[in-house]
């Protein structure tokens, strides 16, 4: 045994046990660990946002543009959104400030403006991106071609595998078809689909559990090696 002399290692061990104590029941140690975790995370996020987002992306470009305008006068370059210093950053800045309007009773409705812009932009952007990046490539990969039976791609066995993928995709799409009751042919298609879905879940479950176990092993190694020096 070779006990660590680093105080922060023992702080880490203490906090690890605080969180693991939840396995027994809720207790003051868990509450302490939980509140510390939440507090430190929020402080880190706030600091990150101020120093990495608000100052370099909003405050600095605006103040530099202000300084340039003072020394050289107003120019079109100061309204170029791609320029490192420009006045246009004030527009998203003001819209972002509308989030705080909920603290002013008469102006609460202003909060809907950034929400509408944000949701509209991201939903509009994600639908074509989803089609381009996910739906079309997957459809292309699912279609069976003569090349699927090519000896270089596994021959007959590769072709059968490709056929299984096609059947699985059509079955799964049938399961998630909501406009028909699962009866007759649709029922058979949906049941085939759910078999494929469950096989996929099983594989995913095993894979993810392995990853979680490795995380737990990492914590035990921290205690046994870094703190207690029992293992190397």
């Amino acid at each position, binding site marked *: 045994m070779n006990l660590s002399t680093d105080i922060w290692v023992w702080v880490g061990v203490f906090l690890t046990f605080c*969180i693991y104590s*939840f396995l027994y029941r*809720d207790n003051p140690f868990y509450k302490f*660990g*939980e509140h510390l*975790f*939440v507090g*430190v*995370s*929020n402080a*880190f996020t706030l600091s990150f946002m101020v120093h990495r987002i608000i100052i370099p992306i909003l405050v600095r470009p605006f103040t530099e543009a202000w300084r340039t305008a003072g020394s050289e006068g107003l120019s079109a370059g100061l309204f170029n959104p791609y320029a490192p210093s420009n006045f246009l950053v004030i527009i998203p800045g003001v819209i972002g400030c509308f*989030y705080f309007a*909920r603290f002013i009773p008469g102006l609460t409705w202003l*909060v*809907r403006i*950034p*929400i509408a812009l*944000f*949701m509209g932009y*991201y*939903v509009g*952007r*994600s*639908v*074509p991106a*989803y*089609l*381009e990046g996910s*739906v*079309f*490539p997957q*459809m*292309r*990969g699912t*279609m*069976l*071609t*003569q*090349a699927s039976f090519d000896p270089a791609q596994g021959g007959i066995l590769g072709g059968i595998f490709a056929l299984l993928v*096609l059947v699985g*995709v*059509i079955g799964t*799409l*049938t399961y*998630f*078809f*909501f*406009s*028909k*009751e*699962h009866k007759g042919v649709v029922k058979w298609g949906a049941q085939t689909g759910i078999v494929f*879905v469950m096989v*996929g*879940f*099983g594989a*995913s*479950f095993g*894979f*993810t559990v392995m990853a*979680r176990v490795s995380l737990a092993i990492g914590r035990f190694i921290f205690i046994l090696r870094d703190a207690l020096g029992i293992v190397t």
Partner: protein
Amino acid sequence: MRWACILCLLTLPAGWAAAQEGAAVGGAPVETAVAGADAGEAPLGQPAEPAPPAPFPAPAGATARDKPNDGGGAIAIRWQPVPGAMAYRIERAGEDGAFVPVGAASALENAYEDRVEDGVAYRYRVVALGPAGEEGASPATLPARSRPQWFNGDLTGVALSVVAFILVVAWFIRRARRGEQLFVRRIAGLEAVDEAVGRATEMGRPVLYIPGTGRIEDIATVASMNVLGEIAKKTAEFGTPILVPNRDPVVFTVSREVVKGAYTAAGRPDAYDPNSVFFLVENSLAFAAAVDGIMVRERPATNFLLGSFFAESLILAEVGASTGAIQIAGTDQVPQLPFFVVACDYTLMGEELYAASAYLSREPLMLGALKGQDAGKLLFMALLVAGTIFSLITGLDAGWLLSTSGY
């Protein structure tokens, strides 16, 4: 061969440096870039003159043109490969007419993309490099200028699909608004919502609604917001407290508006508690720890876990199950679904979550979107079958129709 190519590419920068030095002294930059292997020895006291590189076949058909379908700042250069070449050096001449090396390509490539300034005319030439340092330079290309395009032609198929989808959805919305009954099959997890909220009411305990740990741009989070509105209406009607912890500040703001709007729509604006929707923390595991604390201290009778979930899914679902609460979960994150299946009473898998809001509200707008999605799925299934039959019969790949990288 591969190692020879790599070696040749690794030596290119040294050749460029020599070329730059030559240019600085006043010599022609390219012709002196690579010294010949058989450079003659100079008499004592006199600087050695580098031997000109041995000739090598030059790449034919070198062309330079603005890279299509981009935001500008790029010129695409192409050439015909030279048999036996170890690599290629790409040289660019700006307004001053002097060629300088700007990049390299391996022997296996016959295209290069150069990052340039928009609107400036550039000419290019491609120099094929032989195994012993021989060089063969192509004639200079015609001047090419880079410029941004307003429309990305590669995404024409995507644009048409989106327009077609919008038209189909609009058609279904119109049908629903005219009072037509649009059929939606039974979804078990959603049938249990009334029972779950009712149970919380009977037990006098709150309902806990977790809108996931994703951002507002995640489709699952948007779907979750719609479901939250319907569930908040039910808690308003039943007079049951609802708790909505949030991980993302923007989702928090939207959640608050949704719950407030639901209480108003249910005719109970007075029952809305602004503190029932709250922000916890952005770190997802800290969020899980805090929500676990809420589950064991507030002991909600019903937990809804609907939205985007990641590594914290099992931590939340396990603790919720240990408190004896009814749990209805749903996400489109496939790796997390198995955890919800084993730890929750009902699980909405992927598309079922998207369908949930239409299923619960029966509003024409949402029903139209759901029916539009179904029409899209039907079309995709038909395309898959038709494309497969076409490809197997003709030997062609029908999938190229779905390709989005045209260049």
